[in-house]
């Protein structure tokens, strides 16, 4: 248990260091668009890490960095993509909301709820392939009220497809409190889709891993779809620059009580770990990101001459 949590803490620290590096890019103007960080939600990515194989698919959202790292997407090209560099994962064409790693079957979409139909397609491909790979679609509590959630889970249930729907429930669809506008929680809907449903404390990486692994194993064994809902807290605004006026100062101050990193640290210290040893984990994560940032910053911006590349293979013949 403590070994596992130790490892999860290292992963969470790496995710946070990654997000903090991105914050730096926003402040400096190196990232000139929207940025959504998962600070406060790191335990979910940490719990997912190591559970999936390369041939499993993972389709993530606008808040995707932790999931990408969990799927093994290489960190430097990912950071370079977010920092709008030619060496980015997608050459600077995608940006932080549109990350694609073909070899690891990882992709994202910036449209809330649109992840699940894509994951469903991967799940269907796995059945056609006769493989025991699984597809994971991530959504937030906002996405569970889109039509795509219903359509995808219905079809996954009807065809018993190997689909795991991971709901990151921070109870905020930007500013709208999801529980106030939802007739039922996502897990409570699972029986309607012949799906397995499990709610888990998303600040506890060990619990997330257990629930996520159970759902993945269930899908791998041909049991059909699952909904895993991980409750969590979004520390920052919806995006960097969000004035976040929908939460009171007290409410925001109280968030730190739910910090998954502080929680893991507390538990590990109580279990006999030393401050120095845990500080060392944090230093290691920060050092990795400092080196990554230096590498990314040395890379050039994409050549503007390429702005029309990659639209289609066959030229469309339109005016430039």
């Amino acid at each position: 248990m403590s070994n596992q949590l130790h490892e999860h803490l290292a992963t969470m620290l790496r995710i946070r260091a990654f997000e903090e590096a991105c914050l730096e890019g926003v402040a400096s103007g190196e990232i000139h668009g929207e940025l959504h960080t998962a600070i406060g939600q790191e335990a979910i990515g940490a719990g997912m890490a190591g559970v999936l194989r390369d041939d499993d698919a993972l389709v993530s959202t606008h808040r995707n960095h932790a999931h990408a790292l969990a799927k093994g997407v290489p960190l430097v090209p990912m950071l370079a993509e977010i920092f709008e560099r030619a060496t980015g994962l997608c050459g600077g064409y995608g940006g932080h909301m549109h990350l694609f790693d073909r070899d690891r079957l990882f992709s994202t979409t910036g449209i809330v709820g649109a992840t699940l139909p894509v994951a469903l397609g991967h799940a269907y491909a796995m059945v056609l392939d006769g493989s025991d790979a699984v597809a994971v679609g991530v959504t937030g509590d906002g996405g569970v009220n889109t039509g795509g959630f219903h359509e995808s889970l219905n079809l996954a249930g009807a065809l018993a497809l190997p689909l795991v729907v991971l709901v990151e429930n921070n109870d905020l669809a930007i500013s709208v409190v999801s529980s106030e506008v939802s007739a039922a929680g996502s897990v409570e809907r699972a029986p309607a889709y012949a799906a397995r449903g499990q709610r888990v404390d998303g600040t506890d990486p060990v619990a997330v891993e257990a629930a996520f692994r159970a759902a993945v194993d269930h899908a791998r064994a041909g049991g059909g779809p699952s909904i895993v809902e991980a409750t969590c807290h979004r520390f920052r605004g919806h995006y960097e620059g969000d004035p976040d006026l929908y939460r009171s100062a007290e409410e925001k101050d109280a968030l730190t009580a739910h910090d998954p990193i502080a929680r893991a640290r507390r538990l590990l210290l109580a279990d006999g770990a030393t401050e120095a040893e845990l500080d060392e984990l944090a230093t290691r994560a920060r050092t990795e990101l400092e080196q990554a940032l230096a590498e990314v910053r040395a890379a050039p911006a994409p050549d503007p001459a390429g702005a029309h590349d990659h639209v289609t293979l066959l030229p469309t013949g339109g005016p430039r």
Partner: protein
Amino acid sequence: MTTSAPTRNLNVSSYIAEAIRLEMEADDAIVVLGEDVGRQGGVFGSTRGLQKRFGDRRVLDTPISEMAFTGMGVGLAMSGYRPMIEIMFVDFIGVCLEQVYNAIAKNRYMSGGNVAMPVVIKTAGGCIGSAAQHSQCLWGTFAHLPGMHVVAPSSPYDAKGLMAAALQSDDPVVYIEHKALLLSKSADFAHGAEVPKERYTVPIGEAATVRDGGDVTIATLSANVRDALRAAEELSTEGIDVEVIDLRSVVPLDTATVAASVARTRRLLVVDEDYLSFGLSGELITRVLETLGPSGIEVVRRLGVADVPIPAARSLEEAVVPGATAIAEAVRAMAS
């Protein structure tokens, strides 16, 4: 209509089903998803026999969940498949356009060329008396959004050949079949009536001059090609010599073929069953003008559905949808 009876006299739907069958036999990666595509073989019969031949996994009857099964096309493509997604009527695209224009059309670009989207969106368009929500063409809508090829065949030969090309394409292709043509047989066509049984493709992006003429150029596509040819026959008895160009695809748009014709005729009529404003007709005319310069054209006109939904009653429908009579009238005015 044809001077000699065609060797095979099947309807266009059957030729499309044949094209899909031949491509599926040649490429195991092709899968077909949509409503009624399996057991029924499509509401117009253009997937008939496929489920029997390839099984209910490769030809999947879906629930009425366009958002889900269109998005499945994205996941399937990223998993190495070549999905054909049937949107029964193009009018239904509103419920799933998200996956079409934000994922299928953009993933290649957003991934910096790393992710291919060999997806065919097969969908029926055009007027057959089904009023505002089941009669649109909408090829201009898809064409406006970057990242997709858009084809709309006019003849049995092109219907089969363009479907084969679409299924072989590594780019997304929106294949818009005209409902009135789907149920027409080879013998109903004055052009492209002969359809070989074998595999062949019609290259995407190349217009075809289906009638030579020196007085006026008509550029059109889909079912309006048949109307233009009928009008041209009538006009020839009046001494007006019309050239008819079938664009065959909206994206890529073969401006060169049209411009070369207009350079001779100096008169261009664009006939488009889609909405008039901000669409194919304005775009094509602009590109021809950019190619030839303003002095290269003497008369330009366009016929389209002039920014009004398609009405139900026949008398109203005929008033807004361009047909042979309206085309002939427009040409007469241009030639005089």
